């Protein structure tokens, strides 16, 4: 239980700032053959995805049913990757020192947002106008979702990239100072004349906080736009006020999961093991557990109100999305997003390992896919979205070859984008780590060594 632990300080605490910079930069610059092999395989898979996409294109935009799995892939990447940026933002707001090693890992997901923005484009042709059907745009022009969702997602991508760039400026300067030739020129440009002056640090801190807060709010709004315009409003009779919030919670949930999985891969395959220790996995696993419970709570609030209401329109929605037509993806989502992570992570002894949180996080990522699938595939299988209630329930839309290719290709493209971006931005935020070295100490207290965390302000 709550006993006095006598933790050994993280191994990198003995390093000087200079040693840390050198170590991270050295690993950053040498990618290794394995990296490029994986990148090549992902590139190949992405190529397959392009073939799948062409196959979908050949069927045209008129039959929405064709695009259900494509929309799921887009939504899944949005839910997981674009929410992942938030983890660093939220932990920085909460002034959690343990976030430092994973700050960049989280912010780097902003580049996946850019990739996903391109995936949005074809969906704009698939999405029907809002005239004559229910939407959050009420009597605005029929193309409002097309315009505003593009602007919203675009702003989110720009904001995420700005946050990534802004929060890496000191590290870009570090790379600049250790590089030569053309590489130095590129990083000189990206370092924006950073010399580490006090006023530059003040601007950096203010900028990172502001962009973070803006990203947070924008993300919640875009979750609402995507979830309603690309799913809920296409299904007649589906009026669910909590759905956008549930969609966002599902995003935060899988965001924690993807960061845990990324950390585990980095530990396993790169030399960053000493920076990503049990402390990070343990702390994130508590968040993952809390978000699994919240996932259930938000799902339950929506389900309960419908189930208790017993109106024909509500029951048909429950049957369609949960208990009959799309029951398999729903049960899978429920077990993988809530029950399994809950059962694994309720044990502190498991949370305090590397494998426990990683296993739970991997399962959550699969669960999130099925969760997205049970919303987006059925939403695109409905022919007439202007009806008042779901009178005719369309059959289950099983994925075809093109769909599977698109899913694999989309996910491979997202991972590849992330991997390539990690070649540009050091995946461990050096300046935050160095700040941590200054602000965290081990100190003797009576008979034990204890961690002391500075809380400036």
């Amino acid at each position, binding site marked *: 239980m709550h006993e006095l632990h006598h933790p050994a300080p993280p191994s990198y605490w003995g390093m000087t700032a200079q040693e840390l910079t050198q170590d991270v930069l050295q690993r950053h610059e040498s990618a290794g053959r394995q990296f490029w092999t994986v990148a090549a395989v992902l590139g190949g898979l992405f190529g397959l995805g392009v073939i799948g996409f062409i196959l979908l294109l050949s069927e045209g935009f008129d039959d929405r049913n064709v695009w259900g799995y494509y929309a799921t892939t887009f939504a899944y990447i949005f839910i997981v990757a674009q929410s992942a940026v938030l983890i660093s933002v939220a932990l920085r707001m909460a002034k959690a020192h343990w976030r430092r090693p994973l700050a960049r890992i989280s912010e780097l997901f902003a580049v996946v947002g850019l990739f996903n923005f391109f995936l949005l484009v074809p969906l704009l042709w698939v999405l029907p106008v809002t005239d004559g059907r229910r939407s959050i745009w009420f009597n605005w022009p029929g193309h409002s979702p097309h315009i505003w969702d593009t602007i919203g997602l675009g702003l989110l991508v720009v904001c995420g990239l700005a946050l990534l760039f802004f929060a890496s400026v000191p590290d870009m300067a570090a790379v600049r100072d250790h590089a030569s030739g053309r590489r130095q020129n590129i990083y000189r440009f990206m370092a924006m004349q950073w010399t580490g002056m006090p006023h530059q640090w003040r601007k950096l801190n203010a900028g990172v906080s502001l962009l973070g807060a803006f990203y947070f709010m924008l993300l919640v709004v875009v979750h609402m736009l995507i979830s309603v315009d690309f799913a809920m409003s296409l299904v007649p009779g589906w009026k669910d*006020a*909590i759905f956008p919030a549930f969609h966002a919670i599902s995003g935060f949930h899988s965001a924690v999961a993807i960061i845990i999985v990324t950390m585990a891969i980095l530990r396993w395959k790169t030399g960053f093991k000493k920076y990503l220790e049990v402390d990070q996995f343990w702390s994130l696993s508590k968040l993952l557990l809390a978000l699994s419970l919240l996932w259930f*709570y938000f799902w339950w609030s929506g389900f309960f109100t419908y189930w208790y209401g017993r109106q024909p329109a509500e029951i048909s929605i429950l049957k369609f999305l949960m208990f009959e037509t799309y029951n398999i993806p729903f049960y899978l989502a429920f077990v993988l997003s809530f029950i399994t992570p809950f059962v694994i992570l309720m044990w502190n002894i498991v949370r305090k390992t590397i494998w426990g949180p990683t296993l739970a996080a991997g399962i959550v990522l699969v669960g999130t896919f099925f969760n997205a699938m049970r919303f987006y595939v059925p939403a695109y299988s409905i022919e007439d979205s202007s009806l008042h209630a779901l009178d005719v329930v369309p059959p289950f839309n099983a994925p075809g070859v093109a769909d599977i290719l698109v899913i694999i290709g989309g996910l491979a493209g997202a991972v590849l984008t992330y991997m390539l971006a990690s070649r540009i931005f050091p995946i461990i935020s050096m300046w935050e780590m160095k700040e941590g070295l200054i*602000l965290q100490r081990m100190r003797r207290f009576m008979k034990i060594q204890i961690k002391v965390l500075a809380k400036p302000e």
Partner: protein
Amino acid sequence: MQERVRLTDAQINRDLLRSIFETPKWYFLLVGFLGIIVLLGFAAAGYMINRGLGVTGLNRPVFWGFFITNFVFWIGISHAGVMLSAILRLVQAEWRRPATRAAEVLTVFSLMTAMTMPLIHAGRPWRVMYWVFPYDFARGVYPNVRSALVWDPAAVFTYLTSSILFVYIALVPDIAVLRDRTTGWRHVLYSVLSLGWRGSVRQWKLQLIAGILLSAIILPIFVSVHSIVSWDFGSAMSVEGWHSTVFAPYFVIGAVHSGVSAVVTVMIILRWMFKWENYIRMEHIDALAKLLIVVATGWFFFFALEFIFGLYSLEGPEIALREMQVFQMPWKALFITFLLTSYVIPVSMWLVPKVRRNIPLMIFTTILVNIGMWIERFIIIVPGLARKQNFTFTWGGYTPSLVEITIVTATFALVTMLVLLFAKVFPLIPLGDAKEGMILHDEIKIGKVMVPAVMREE
């Protein structure tokens, strides 16, 4: 910036037990004044029971008015306790220390007060026994256990029991301090209540484990309470605007918003009354205000969802209801006041760092929030009922009577009085926590400055 002063254990004991051992004259005057208002409330309730519900403004179709609004309001305030105490304890937020006890105590008293509301609202409180026993003994007709109205008392009672336990567990070491400093019957009382506390390592360990376990167990209860209160409304199909899937989290986060605001109000008053400037410092108020910005914005998001999806399907009756809430007097005035007081004014003020460290402005904004949140419950409950029927000639209105206003006012006096009476018997800032905070506080030298720091046990 922190304004921490190093205090010795003796000094902490002296300061924090001041409310118990030194009673200023105004204390009795204030408690007496509040007592009179409470008595007036009792008299009004007695009159109402004698004359029947006809003396209230309740009438077809609006059968839920001030009492139920007040019930939801006080249940909301009670959410401060767990939010601050349990969650902040689990996340090891240092600035929670002076706020936990006040928050927990506010939880207990506001829950008790909230529970009087449905009793009074029942008109004939003895009929409440039908919640447990059959309506009709001969035929065994029981209350409908599938109704949220029946789960409600169960959830609230569970929450009350666990909150009392929560307060008590945290109080035990402080009661032992009191035991050692009192004589006569008070010594006997504190001796019994302190459960033989000696402050041994084993006892502290048990106390710590109990606190953490209770924090974790109480969290689901805390969420369930306001969720079920929301389903009192959400599961009703016949009232426009109530059957919304977002109601449960919307109510919970609204409760946290109003509850934490109320805790800040109480803390500021305590700081001023008992001169606890060294304990309830500006950095604590500042941190709470920052938390409130996040909570308030989260709440506003849920409010927006509730409103947007009310209109989403563009159904006539729903639009008519929203139109009434927003554009027709007196609802229009209430709606604008609600928006301004619960979100726009306070949050825009809290964004300014100087406001977060200004006592009069903080007390002003936190009181504003609770005015707004009371109105919020009122405009959720009453307009929907007023338009409940299909035919316009069966529509109704609602004007609270003097009896209802008196009883509702008395509940505010009751909670304040109970908190003051509690402060006379037990310390409102946990001594052990304050001392622990002193021990765990440290400083790290960075360059030329000393930066405040905290020791972490794990």
